[in-house]
């Protein structure tokens, strides 16, 4: 067998993984989840970041934040709790120190923006939108369960709609993504509020509010008492929520979903895509293997080829429930 031609054929036949998310064209659906991948190139020694579909930064707030006291994390069965408290270097240092690195990475960059009032979000989003062309997407973290009041935007559809509408007016260029909180009784309600207020894309899920108790001291393990649960433990709930948002809201409005929550294998990724996700983010699993997004792409190509699909887009939301 002639090896060079067979390789060429494999390459030619490789299924297309590219996806469109708002204004962004991604070579593949795999991104990092905010807060699990640093600001820019921290994983460069462990994975080829240029092969990621997009890079999502840690939450960047207007002013720098020290964050919570230690302990900030605790492992649980098949996952972990975190209560970092949105510790970050703040917008100015982010722009001067990290943007140049992000520009060199050569993949679409999405900046995650937290806030404690609507103006916080809008001010940061506007700066990013107007001054930094490398920032192609802005993801509003309306669901961080660790900071007081942060809960209210993501769990109250009225306040969420007001927030999104206000940011929408000031973001002209970048794709506006709203990251939904799973700590609600029906995620379709907040999803609809965000979409009707002008979101270009929805990402879900953020972490589930949870607690671990130190039985020796009879105190919560985390300094913040509660933390957000992430990792494989939440995956089936996240898949369900993506499917619910897709069928109830996103499909009709033609709004793409970035799915996340416990993704660590290509099989996990396929579940999210069938449920309705266009993009996928890997979070906690990056702590164990930063190259997981690349490995998932390999697995997705093989799955699509085996199933006879030329493109990943063919299977988005094709879950059969009849």
């Amino acid at each position, binding site marked *: 067998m002639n090896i060079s031609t067979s390789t060429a054929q494999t390459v030619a036949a490789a299924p297309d993984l590219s996806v469109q998310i708002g204004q962004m064209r991604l070579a593949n659906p795999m991104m990092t989840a905010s807060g699990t991948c640093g600001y820019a190139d921290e994983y460069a*020694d462990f994975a080829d970041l240029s092969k990621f579909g997009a890079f999502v930064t840690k939450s960047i707030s207007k002013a720098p934040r020290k964050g919570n006291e230690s302990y*900030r994390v605790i492992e649980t069965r098949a996952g972990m709790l975190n209560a970092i408290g949105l510790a970050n270097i703040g917008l100015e240092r982010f722009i001067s120190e990290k943007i140049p690195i992000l520009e060199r990475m050569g993949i679409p960059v999405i900046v995650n923006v937290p806030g404690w009032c609507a103006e916080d979000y809008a001010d940061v989003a506007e700066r990013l939108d107007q001054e930094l062309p490398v920032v192609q997407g802005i993801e509003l973290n309306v669901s961080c369960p660790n900071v007081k009041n942060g809960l209210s935007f993501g769990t109250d559809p009225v306040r969420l709609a007001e927030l999104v509408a206000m940011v929408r007016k000031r973001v002209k260029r970048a794709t506006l993504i709203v990251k939904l909180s799973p700590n609600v009784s029906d995620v379709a309600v907040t999803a609809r509020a965000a979409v009707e207020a002008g979101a270009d894309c929805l990402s879900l899920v953020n972490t589930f509010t949870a607690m671990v108790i130190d039985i020796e001291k009879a105190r919560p393990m985390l300094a913040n008492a509660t933390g957000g649960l992430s990792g494989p433990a939440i995956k089936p709930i996240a898949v369900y929520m993506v499917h619910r948002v897709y069928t109830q809201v996103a499909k009709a409005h033609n709004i793409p979903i970035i799915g996340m929550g416990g993704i660590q294998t290509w099989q996990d990724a396929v579940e999210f895509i069938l449920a309705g996700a266009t993009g996928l983010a890997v979070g906690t699993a990056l*702590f164990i293997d*930063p190259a997981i997004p690349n490995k998932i792409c390999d697995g997705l190509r093989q799955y699509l080829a085996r199933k006879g699909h030329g493109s990943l887009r063919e299977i988005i939301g094709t879950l059969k429930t009849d």
Partner: protein
Amino acid sequence: MLLWMIQCAAHDNAANHATARKKGQFAAIVLANTQICREHFLLTLRLREFPASEPGQFVQVLCPPPDVAVQSAEQAVAGLQEVFWEPGTRPPRFHDPDFLGSQPYLRRPFSIAGRRDDPANAVSDIDLIYRVIGKATIRMSHLVTGDSISILGPLGNAFPVPEATHTALLVGGGVGIPPMIYLADKFQRAGIKSIAFVGAQKADLIPLHITGDVGTQASSNVREFAAFNTQTVVATDDGSLGNKGFVTQALEKFCESSAVSQGVIFCCGPTPMMRATALVAARLKLPCYVSLEQPMACGMGTCQSCIIKYRSGSAEDWVYKLTCKDGPVFNSADILW
């Protein structure tokens, strides 16, 4: 989960061969995993093209699946276990009481305790010394020669090297002893005189080979340090070996009674012990470097979990630094203890 870990290990080496990196993800082969005292094991791993490392640095270990062969037949409820080795093929040692299978999820950090390179074959052997205290270390104790595990590293910064005329005082408590062995090796090569001070609660919790009477003075009867021409002072809380009391007391006594010229303290151990060492150093006006331990989720500077309060600006001012990236080694005077 098991399948996924095997895939990780298999993928790692291929990804790393391309470039000479400062750190990376590697598949490591177990050369030996031997119990050295009641709760400590010495794990020696062989890696290909492992980047240069320094004492103070650590690796993140992806822990192996549980050895369910140690469970009794009643416990091994059919279908609950992912793997089942033939009874007797693996040495039964510590048992995880959570037999329904609570797998460790994240990697676990361990200091590099020693390293030997074979540059001709691009092969390095690294030693880890670990104490069995929970689910991950229980599983590590079941590793046997030939097993493969995934390693991330080398991570973190290194202990600084003092001037050749200085005396290095290596202070290790419990699981803080391992990096001191690697440091003794480095200082011997650099021509710096070191003296080790090691402490534990009891004699049988010292993860070192005692080859003779250690007394209360510095002796050459601790094999791991003697191998690097380093004498060792031993202390145990209960007096079952060496000096009775904390290792910091033995350190202070030694420094006051003998004329140590220009001592520099290097310390690793439980936080209270490092805090006490920092106070001794301040009293004796000696520079002191500590290798801190904090809960770590990533070890790569991305999760922000491993924070310590680091002095900056005026007396009461501080910033958070990351133990995994800015440390684990810090000047003890910079830490807000």
